């Protein structure tokens, strides 16, 4: 009878041990933050492209523009709600002088983009309109918004999928920009 009692407790003991591991694992996952598989594009040069702007008076965007200075490339769209959510943060980033902000309007028309930027403000130094989604595919974009950082040599060094958050900017993007400025 006593041995039976011992056996009956064993599964519970094992489960408690397992729970400890799960807790530790979760804690680790939370601390490490983003555990998505990193983008295949990181550490690769910017793909070749040349996109028109939303109107003739505003600078367009091509691969050649993304050199000489640290660059941020932000995929956005006028139909994309999270893009609107991150818009103030992009605007804030555009106030920095160690980086240039480039927008690629994904699956959108110049007319819509002009209207959208007019309404919400234009933080971008250059804008390319990728109406056919062709360029987004080359970048490996899986959804909008997505944000990339490109170093002075034209190599992608960072990718963030989904809308930017204040903690992402403070903990990941700004340290990276400062590191690049040195």
């Amino acid at each position: 009878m006593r041995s039976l009692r011992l056996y009956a407790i064993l599964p519970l003991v094992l489960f408690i041990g397992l729970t400890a591991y799960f807790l530790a694992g979760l804690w680790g996952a939370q601390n490490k933050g983003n555990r998505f598989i990193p983008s295949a594009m990181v550490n690769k040069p910017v793909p070749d492209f040349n996109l028109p702007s939303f109107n003739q008076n505003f600078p367009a965007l091509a691969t050649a523009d993304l050199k000489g200075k640290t660059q941020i490339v932000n995929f956005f769209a006028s139909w994309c709600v999270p893009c609107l959510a991150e818009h103030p943060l992009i605007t804030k980033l555009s106030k920095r002088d160690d980086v240039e902000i480039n927008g690629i309007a994904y699956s959108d028309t110049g007319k819509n983009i002009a209207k959208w930027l007019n309404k919400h403000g234009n933080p971008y130094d250059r804008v390319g309109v990728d109406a056919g989604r062709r360029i987004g595919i080359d970048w490996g974009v899986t959804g909008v918004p997505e944000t990339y950082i490109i170093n002075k040599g034209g190599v992608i060094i960072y990718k963030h999928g989904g809308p930017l958050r204040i903690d992402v900017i403070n903990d990941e993007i700004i340290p990276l920009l400062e590191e690049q400025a040195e």
Partner: protein
Amino acid sequence: MTPELGHYALILALFVAFFQSTIPMWGAARNNIYAMNFAGHAAMAQFLCLLVAFASLTQAFVTSDFSVANVVANSHSLQPVLYKVSAVWGNHEGSLLLWVVILAGFGALVHFFGGNLPPNLKSRTLAVQAMIAVGFLLFLLLTSNPFARLDPAPFEGRSLNPLLQDPGLAFHPPMLYIGYVGLSIAYSFAVAALIEGKVDAAWARWVRPWTLLAWSFLTAGIMLGSWWAYYELGWGGFWYWDPVENASFMPWLVATALLHSAIVVEKRDTLKTWTILLAIIAFSLSLIGTFLVRSGILTSVHAFANDPERGVFILLLLVVAIGGSLTLYAWRAPQLKGGGLFRPISREGGLILNNLLLTSACATVFLGTLYPLFVEVLGGDRVSVGAPYFNATFVPLIIPLLLALVVGPKLAWKRGDIWAAMAGLRLAFFITVIISLGVGILIWQKSAVAIIGLSIALLMMLNSVGDIYTRAGFRKSGFIKGLKRLIRLPRAFWGMTLAHLGVAFLVAGATGATLLTYEKIVALKPGQVTQLSYFNIRFDGANDVTGPNYTALRGHYSAISNDGEIIAKFTPERRRYVGGGQETTEAGIKSTFWDDIYVVIGDRGEDGSYVARLYHKPLAPWLWWGSFLMVSGGFISLSDRSLRVGAPKRIGDNAVIKNKIRNA
């Protein structure tokens, strides 16, 4: 408006579930029949509420209501209707909703078919079922509301992950969930029995059909997933030992063990505490699987976004559900009385061996799946455990299991005669050896190990055929009479035999698809021919095509026999979806009874050639035939049991009595 209705129904379901989990429990303790009867009505009400919630989410998806955040994230107006519907469960929130709908559906079924259950057991089972529902409904409402709105609403959605836009995968999650969640019934029955302190043959008879139902769906779900991976991922594999796959495989292994051990409880009134434990573990593993897939604790290529915060909530659920039931088990199990005695060599002994091997196999899969986590927590590097580990540990456990499968059913209950059982296998063994020698010469150079797999599969097949032959008694009563007897054999026998035959096909298929495969990666220009095992494959060119919501590169290939005759044509595709720009591959597969030829088109080279991956996979179609046999075996067996489970009232039915007399 409809999404709010759904949200409201969801909240209502939570309250119903709460009362369903408390009032009947109290009633069962006090022997208050009114409070106990409340369980059944509440189960129906809860199911109805959740159906309303599910219907309103489906409506939002079908009409592309982009004011619902979930629809925006997972649907697209150009998506075909089938995928608009399957997108409902192709995401975290919606799949969780489906999960609780099925959970409540099972509760309603228990009420519906459980008329002959003792009221105490029934009300406690439904109450435990409702406790699980409360946990998951809270999870849904607090962390993953599927009805959250967006303002302003965008014009277009982000489309369902294109990998999931596939008929095989559209039905994979519902099947799998019916399997996972079906195990909750066995769990609830086990917990209810522990509370009552009574497990007997009747209990096992009630639990078995539910386990069988869950097992059949789980098998079908895993098969669909594997089939999908086979033709959609384009690597020619059917099983990757990915954590998500393992998460569904572990409950399957334990459910298989439970299915067999419940027989012992039913027939011999012994092995009770073990069976209870299996019932708890089977569902616990489903829960742990859910946790692993959705918490981000293990990295896996999967459609669900990983979110550690949700993970904390699920972990809490795990602790309450698994920890609670195991505590109850530790407290109550030693008080359950054991039943009949038996010798090690007996039907019981065989079934125990089956159980030990299945649970050990499950333990190795469990360790392999969680090893990366253990190492990481202890401060090591991120590691991954791949196929070599699983092949080295899982396969050696499965081989004796397969042999036990052949011999076990031939042993008598209580005390069996192993030599007599073996003697019945003489002919099958003899034929197996001869054919294996012949096949062995053919495939020796390709893979010697494959001979073992094929021999075992062949022995199992011959054994099944032999069993049918013996049971029909062709030798004693002649062909016509034998045929008549064959039709009237109990469906449980047919179910078992078909399922075991299915395992044989599965083993042969797995052996062929892994060890005997020919593989070739070549760059071909249009018109070029290359050799693959004993075929020639010609590349006829490639062109661009447009689908409803994608554009694709489509290659044209022909398989040509040595005489120059065209055997088959292939049109593999690489699709690029307009919603998100993701790429998928569609393999071109030509199946015959004996083999698959499998063609995948790759990138275009600078010189106008295209890379192609070509596979010749002998016996690969048997994987799906085998799985299909197993599932149908499960359902056929279930149809037999349903006659007996609903028993007491129908005894008066003439047809049943006649049947009984005939079978006696």
